[in-house]
Protein backbone atom coordinates (compact mmCIF):
# COMPACT_ATOMS: atom_id res chain seq x y z
CA UNK A 1 0.00 0.00 0.00
CA UNK A 2 2.56 2.59 1.12
CA UNK A 3 6.29 2.26 0.79
CA UNK A 4 8.05 3.58 3.88
CA UNK A 5 11.78 4.12 4.04
CA UNK A 6 12.94 4.77 7.58
CA UNK A 7 16.36 5.85 6.35
CA UNK A 8 14.70 8.99 4.98
CA UNK A 9 13.28 9.99 8.34
CA UNK A 10 14.36 13.56 8.93
CA UNK A 11 13.62 16.13 11.53
CA UNK A 12 13.54 19.88 11.09
CA UNK A 13 13.91 21.30 14.54
CA UNK A 14 15.43 24.72 14.09
CA UNK A 15 12.72 27.03 15.42
CA UNK A 16 11.36 27.49 18.89
CA UNK A 17 8.64 26.44 19.59
CA UNK A 18 9.86 23.49 17.63
CA UNK A 19 7.98 22.51 14.51
CA UNK A 20 6.90 18.92 14.76
CA UNK A 21 8.19 17.82 11.41
CA UNK A 22 9.26 14.49 10.11
CA UNK A 23 9.58 13.33 6.57
CA UNK A 24 10.10 9.87 5.23
CA UNK A 25 9.50 7.83 2.11
CA UNK A 26 5.74 7.90 2.52
CA UNK A 27 4.95 11.41 1.27
CA UNK A 28 1.25 11.17 2.14
CA UNK A 29 1.98 10.38 5.81
CA UNK A 30 4.66 13.08 5.94
CA UNK A 31 2.26 15.66 4.48
CA UNK A 32 -0.42 14.79 7.01
CA UNK A 33 1.87 14.87 10.01
CA UNK A 34 4.19 17.75 9.18
CA UNK A 35 3.99 21.43 9.86
CA UNK A 36 2.65 21.91 13.39
CA UNK A 37 4.44 23.68 16.22
CA UNK A 38 4.98 22.17 19.63
CA UNK A 39 6.88 23.22 22.74
CA UNK A 40 9.15 20.93 24.73
CA UNK A 41 6.66 20.99 27.64
CA UNK A 42 3.83 19.93 25.39
CA UNK A 43 5.92 17.19 23.81
CA UNK A 44 6.87 15.95 27.27
CA UNK A 45 3.21 15.88 28.35
CA UNK A 46 2.29 14.05 25.14
CA UNK A 47 4.94 11.41 25.81
CA UNK A 48 3.63 11.02 29.37
CA UNK A 49 0.13 10.40 28.03
CA UNK A 50 1.56 7.85 25.58
CA UNK A 51 3.26 6.00 28.45
CA UNK A 52 0.05 6.10 30.50
CA UNK A 53 -2.00 4.64 27.64
CA UNK A 54 0.47 1.82 27.10
CA UNK A 55 0.52 0.98 30.81
CA UNK A 56 -3.27 0.89 30.97
CA UNK A 57 -3.49 -1.39 27.92
CA UNK A 58 -0.89 -3.70 29.43
CA UNK A 59 -2.46 -4.03 32.88
CA UNK A 60 -6.10 -2.95 32.95
CA UNK A 61 -8.89 -5.50 33.01
CA UNK A 62 -7.10 -8.52 34.48
CA UNK A 63 -9.50 -10.16 36.94
CA UNK A 64 -8.18 -11.18 40.34
CA UNK A 65 -8.85 -14.88 39.62
CA UNK A 66 -6.43 -14.78 36.67
CA UNK A 67 -3.45 -13.92 38.85
CA UNK A 68 -4.51 -16.38 41.57
CA UNK A 69 -5.10 -19.33 39.23
CA UNK A 70 -1.98 -18.67 37.15
CA UNK A 71 0.05 -18.32 40.36
CA UNK A 72 -1.42 -21.61 41.58
CA UNK A 73 -0.53 -23.20 38.24
CA UNK A 74 3.09 -22.06 38.51
CA UNK A 75 3.16 -23.22 42.15
CA UNK A 76 2.14 -26.70 41.00
CA UNK A 77 5.37 -27.03 38.98
CA UNK A 78 7.78 -27.64 41.91
CA UNK A 79 5.17 -29.84 43.59
CA UNK A 80 5.07 -32.03 40.47
CA UNK A 81 8.63 -33.15 41.28
CA UNK A 82 7.28 -34.87 44.42
CA UNK A 83 5.04 -37.10 42.30
CA UNK A 84 6.04 -40.17 40.29
CA UNK A 85 7.60 -39.05 36.99
CA UNK A 86 4.63 -39.97 34.74
CA UNK A 87 2.15 -38.30 37.07
CA UNK A 88 4.35 -35.19 37.33
CA UNK A 89 4.54 -34.90 33.54
CA UNK A 90 0.76 -35.27 33.25
CA UNK A 91 0.23 -32.60 35.93
CA UNK A 92 2.64 -30.15 34.24
CA UNK A 93 0.95 -30.70 30.85
CA UNK A 94 -2.49 -30.13 32.38
CA UNK A 95 -1.34 -26.98 34.17
CA UNK A 96 0.27 -25.62 30.98
CA UNK A 97 -2.98 -26.12 29.05
CA UNK A 98 -5.03 -24.49 31.82
CA UNK A 99 -2.68 -21.48 32.08
CA UNK A 100 -2.72 -20.96 28.30
CA UNK A 101 -6.51 -21.35 28.20
CA UNK A 102 -7.06 -18.86 31.02
CA UNK A 103 -4.80 -16.34 29.22
CA UNK A 104 -7.00 -16.61 26.10
CA UNK A 105 -10.23 -16.29 28.14
CA UNK A 106 -8.89 -13.25 29.97
CA UNK A 107 -7.72 -11.64 26.72
CA UNK A 108 -11.24 -11.97 25.28
CA UNK A 109 -12.83 -10.67 28.46
CA UNK A 110 -10.48 -7.66 28.50
CA UNK A 111 -11.26 -6.89 24.85
CA UNK A 112 -7.56 -6.79 24.04
CA UNK A 113 -6.07 -9.04 21.37
CA UNK A 114 -2.29 -9.17 21.81
CA UNK A 115 0.35 -10.48 19.44
CA UNK A 116 1.67 -13.98 20.05
CA UNK A 117 5.26 -12.80 19.93
CA UNK A 118 4.98 -9.51 21.85
CA UNK A 119 2.74 -7.94 24.46
CA UNK A 120 1.88 -4.50 25.77
CA UNK A 121 3.87 -5.11 28.96
CA UNK A 122 7.36 -3.63 28.99
CA UNK A 123 10.26 -6.06 29.35
CA UNK A 124 11.02 -4.65 32.81
CA UNK A 125 7.48 -5.48 33.91
CA UNK A 126 7.67 -8.98 32.38
CA UNK A 127 10.99 -9.52 34.17
CA UNK A 128 9.57 -8.32 37.49
CA UNK A 129 6.52 -10.56 37.10
CA UNK A 130 8.05 -13.80 35.85
CA UNK A 131 11.75 -14.00 36.68
CA UNK A 132 11.56 -14.21 40.52
CA UNK A 133 8.79 -16.83 40.32
CA UNK A 134 10.68 -18.89 37.74
CA UNK A 135 13.93 -18.73 39.74
CA UNK A 136 12.18 -19.95 42.91
CA UNK A 137 10.31 -22.59 40.88
CA UNK A 138 13.57 -23.98 39.49
CA UNK A 139 15.33 -23.75 42.86
CA UNK A 140 12.46 -25.61 44.53
CA UNK A 141 12.43 -28.31 41.88
CA UNK A 142 16.18 -28.93 42.09
CA UNK A 143 16.10 -28.46 45.89
CA UNK A 144 14.35 -31.82 46.14
CA UNK A 145 17.79 -33.38 45.78
CA UNK A 146 18.83 -31.68 49.06
CA UNK A 147 15.64 -32.14 51.08
CA UNK A 148 12.42 -33.75 49.83
CA UNK A 149 10.24 -31.06 51.43
CA UNK A 150 11.94 -28.05 49.74
CA UNK A 151 9.47 -27.95 46.76
CA UNK A 152 6.62 -27.27 49.24
CA UNK A 153 7.84 -23.89 50.59
CA UNK A 154 9.06 -23.09 47.06
CA UNK A 155 5.51 -23.61 45.74
CA UNK A 156 4.12 -21.26 48.38
CA UNK A 157 6.73 -18.61 47.56
CA UNK A 158 6.09 -18.95 43.80
CA UNK A 159 2.36 -18.45 44.35
CA UNK A 160 2.84 -15.43 46.62
CA UNK A 161 5.45 -13.85 44.32
CA UNK A 162 3.53 -14.26 41.08
CA UNK A 163 0.00 -13.57 42.29
CA UNK A 164 1.16 -10.75 44.57
CA UNK A 165 3.19 -9.02 41.85
CA UNK A 166 0.41 -9.42 39.28
CA UNK A 167 -2.27 -8.08 41.62
CA UNK A 168 -0.09 -5.18 42.73
CA UNK A 169 0.94 -4.12 39.23
CA UNK A 170 -2.63 -4.41 37.93
CA UNK A 171 -3.92 -2.22 40.73
CA UNK A 172 -1.08 0.29 40.41
CA UNK A 173 -1.09 0.62 36.62
CA UNK A 174 -4.90 0.61 36.31
CA UNK A 175 -5.02 3.50 38.74
CA UNK A 176 -3.17 5.67 36.18
CA UNK A 177 -5.93 7.92 34.96
CA UNK A 178 -5.97 9.02 31.34
CA UNK A 179 -4.06 12.28 31.20
CA UNK A 180 -4.83 15.46 29.34
CA UNK A 181 -2.27 17.94 28.18
CA UNK A 182 -2.33 21.65 27.46
CA UNK A 183 -2.92 21.95 23.78
CA UNK A 184 -5.54 22.99 21.31
CA UNK A 185 -7.30 19.67 21.01
CA UNK A 186 -9.55 19.28 18.05
CA UNK A 187 -11.20 16.66 15.95
CA UNK A 188 -9.79 18.12 12.79
Amino acid at each position, binding site marked *: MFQVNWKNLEFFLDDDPTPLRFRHGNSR*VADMETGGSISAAEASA*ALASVRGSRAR*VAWTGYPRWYWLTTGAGFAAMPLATLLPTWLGVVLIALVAVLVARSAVVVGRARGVCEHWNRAAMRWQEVTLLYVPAVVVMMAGSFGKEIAWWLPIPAAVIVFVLFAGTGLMLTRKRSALRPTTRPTTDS*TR
Partner: protein
Amino acid sequence: VIHAPVRLRICAALEPVREIEFGALINLLGISKSALSKHVSVLADAGYVTQRRGVRDTRQRLWIGLTDTGHTAYRGHVAALHQIVGRGK
Protein backbone atom coordinates in the same frame (compact mmCIF):
# COMPACT_ATOMS: atom_id res chain seq x y z
CA VAL B 1 -3.77 13.78 12.47
CA ILE B 2 -2.08 11.96 15.33
CA HIS B 3 -1.04 14.90 17.47
CA ALA B 4 -4.53 15.61 18.87
CA PRO B 5 -4.32 14.28 22.47
CA VAL B 6 -7.07 11.69 22.26
CA ARG B 7 -5.88 10.36 18.91
CA LEU B 8 -2.34 10.13 20.21
CA ARG B 9 -3.62 8.09 23.17
CA ILE B 10 -5.68 5.90 20.85
CA CYS B 11 -2.59 5.17 18.75
CA ALA B 12 -0.49 4.60 21.89
CA ALA B 13 -3.05 2.08 23.13
CA LEU B 14 -3.27 0.28 19.78
CA GLU B 15 0.46 0.22 19.00
CA PRO B 16 1.58 -2.65 21.27
CA VAL B 17 -1.40 -4.93 20.55
CA ARG B 18 -3.09 -6.42 17.51
CA GLU B 19 -6.62 -5.18 18.17
CA ILE B 20 -8.70 -3.65 20.94
CA GLU B 21 -12.44 -3.87 21.22
CA PHE B 22 -14.29 -0.54 20.94
CA GLY B 23 -15.86 -0.85 24.42
CA ALA B 24 -12.53 -1.73 26.02
CA LEU B 25 -10.94 1.29 24.35
CA ILE B 26 -13.63 3.55 25.85
CA ASN B 27 -12.76 2.25 29.33
CA LEU B 28 -9.01 2.54 28.74
CA LEU B 29 -9.18 6.12 27.51
CA GLY B 30 -12.01 7.33 29.73
CA ILE B 31 -13.82 9.15 26.94
CA SER B 32 -17.36 9.00 25.57
CA LYS B 33 -18.51 6.62 22.87
CA SER B 34 -19.27 9.45 20.44
CA ALA B 35 -15.89 11.12 20.99
CA LEU B 36 -14.05 7.85 20.42
CA SER B 37 -16.11 7.14 17.33
CA LYS B 38 -15.27 10.56 15.89
CA HIS B 39 -11.54 10.21 16.53
CA VAL B 40 -11.44 6.65 15.19
CA SER B 41 -13.18 7.85 12.01
CA VAL B 42 -10.51 10.52 11.50
CA LEU B 43 -7.76 7.93 11.97
CA ALA B 44 -9.56 5.47 9.67
CA ASP B 45 -9.96 8.13 6.96
CA ALA B 46 -6.22 8.75 7.15
CA GLY B 47 -5.63 5.00 6.73
CA TYR B 48 -4.11 4.66 10.20
CA VAL B 49 -6.60 2.25 11.77
CA THR B 50 -8.72 -0.65 10.61
CA GLN B 51 -12.14 -1.53 11.97
CA ARG B 52 -13.35 -5.13 12.01
CA ARG B 53 -16.71 -6.40 13.16
CA GLY B 54 -16.78 -9.67 15.07
CA VAL B 55 -19.29 -11.57 17.18
CA ARG B 56 -18.55 -12.46 20.82
CA ASP B 57 -21.08 -13.77 23.33
CA THR B 58 -23.79 -13.45 20.64
CA ARG B 59 -23.15 -9.69 20.46
CA GLN B 60 -21.48 -7.86 17.63
CA ARG B 61 -18.27 -6.11 18.63
CA LEU B 62 -16.09 -3.65 16.81
CA TRP B 63 -12.37 -4.37 16.91
CA ILE B 64 -9.91 -1.60 16.13
CA GLY B 65 -6.29 -2.08 15.11
CA LEU B 66 -3.42 0.05 13.82
CA THR B 67 -2.43 -0.39 10.15
CA ASP B 68 1.18 -0.52 8.95
CA THR B 69 0.85 3.13 7.88
CA GLY B 70 -0.54 3.95 11.31
CA HIS B 71 2.39 2.21 12.99
CA THR B 72 4.83 4.17 10.83
CA ALA B 73 3.13 7.50 11.45
CA TYR B 74 2.80 6.89 15.20
CA ARG B 75 6.44 5.84 15.63
CA GLY B 76 7.60 8.81 13.57
CA HIS B 77 5.48 11.11 15.69
CA VAL B 78 6.77 9.70 18.98
CA ALA B 79 10.34 9.90 17.67
CA ALA B 80 9.77 13.55 16.79
CA LEU B 81 8.36 14.21 20.27
CA HIS B 82 11.44 12.60 21.83
CA GLN B 83 13.65 14.83 19.68
CA ILE B 84 11.79 17.94 20.83
CA VAL B 85 12.01 16.93 24.49
CA GLY B 86 15.71 16.13 24.04
CA ARG B 87 16.34 19.56 22.56
CA GLY B 88 14.42 21.25 25.35
CA LYS B 89 16.75 19.86 28.03
